[in-house]
Structures are given as structure tokens and as C-alpha cells.
């Protein structure tokens, strides 16, 4: 997978996760708390993970590491 594509995937995951976070934490109820912990947090963390891996791959390719 190209670096541009994996960064795009990271962006989509972060955008969706952050949007779910804003909506779910507008008013915290048991169901919105569940949505935040089970949907938003994993999406944002996955996005961050994909982004960090992409950066590491670029750094390794360009001799930055």
C-alpha cells in the first residue's frame, strides 16, 4: 500500500473517530459512553497507529531512522 493511501486511511479513521467523539460526548449517557469507548476510541487509536506506522515507513525508506 502506498504511503499516500495509508495516510488517507489514517485521516478517514481520525475524522470518523473524532466526529463520533464529538457527538457521543455532547451529552454523556450510558449508551453514548458505550459508543465513545467502543467506537470512537478504537477508531482514533487505529488512525493514529496507521499514521505513525506510515511515518516510520517513510523515515526508514529515506534513511531517517
Amino acid at each position, binding site marked *: 500500500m502506498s504511503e*499516500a493511501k495509508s*495516510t*488517507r486511511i*489514517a*485521516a*478517514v479513521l*481520525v*475524522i470518523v*473517530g*473524532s*466526529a463520533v*467523539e*464529538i457527538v457521543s*460526548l455532547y451529552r*454523556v*449517557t*450510558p*449508551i453514548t*459512553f*458505550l459508543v*465513545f*469507548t467502543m467506537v*470512537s*476510541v478504537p477508531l*482514533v*487509536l487505529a*488512525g*493514529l497507529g496507521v*499514521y*505513525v506506522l506510515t*511515518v516510520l515507513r517513510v523515515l526508514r525508506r529515506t534513511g531517517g531512522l
Partner: protein
Amino acid sequence: MLVSAGLAIGLGLLFLLDAERLSGSRGGRIAILIGLGCLPLFALGGGTAHAVHESSSTEFCLNCHEMTPYGQSLFVEDTKALPAAHYQSRLIDRDHVCYACHKDYGLLGDFKAKLTGLNHVYVHFLGEIPETFELYSPYPNSNCLYCHDDARSFLDSAGHRGQVEQFRKGRTSCLTCHAMGHGLDQVKAGEFWLANP
């Protein structure tokens, strides 16, 4: 938290719309680092802190109808009922009254309480709700002693004299004498105390 999440979304969208130009310049790469790395992490930290705080409120616990009698028990006309005694005399923060007594005060107390809460939500929506509720484990003295340990009223009480070490070591449960719990019988009987009748 909202601003960070909003900015992360904005920068993420900007990247999706013009990825080539952003990743082709130093400033653009820094913007991506902030938008996809720093801001989401900051927003997630803030969001988690907000979620933990809000989900510790009395209002949050009483969102589920199963908890209604326990919420009503804060107003029963019997000061032997522990929640009522604590709530009515303002011994604990009324906005976090359930959480103050039902979370452990150890290092992982908040984490454990949230995991248990998630289990409650699961049971509420997908599981079988029991007829009567029981604690997962015997109520620990440490939760009582977190507030009462060096309180004069506790140490001077005739019933506590000579027993304090037993309580601290958990050899004698506080509930041996203070066993009334929530006073659900009074709730059923409709015996309530009102501050401003």
C-alpha cells in the same frame, strides 16, 4: 477537547482534499503531523477525562431504570440507611453520590469502576437483568475508611473504640453493624424525607 477534535477533523479533511500539496511541503507535513498525530491524541485524552467525569455522576447512574429505587433510597426517612444518611447530611458530593461509595479507592479504582459500568450497560441492553442486585464482592471497609478513617466522629464513637484496627485490617466489616444498605423496604413503603416539604 471539542476544539481539538474539530481541528483534527478540519485538518484531516484538508489532507483528504489536497493530499499531494500538503505532503509535498514541510509546512504541510507539519500540519498533517498536528492534524493526524497531536490533535486527535489531545482530543482523545480530553474526551476520556470528560467521559470519566460525566459517567461518575449521580445523574448518569440513574439513567437506567433499574437504578430508580436506588436513587429514591437517597431520600428515605431513615438515617440508618447509609445512602440516605450520607446524601441527606451532605457527607458526600451529591452529584457523585453513587460513585463515591461504589468505586474502589486503589490505583485502578476508576478503571475497574468503568469496566464494571460497561458490563452493566451490556447487561442492560443485551443480558438478563437479575431480580435483585448484589455486589460482585463483599463491600470493602477501605471504601468507608477512605473518608471516615481519621474522622473524629468515627474515632470517638463508642461502638468503634477498640475496634478501629479490626476495621482497617478488614477483619470486621463495617456492614456488620451498618447492614441496612439502601433501605429499599422504605422505598417500597414510600417513606421519604423531603428537605422542603
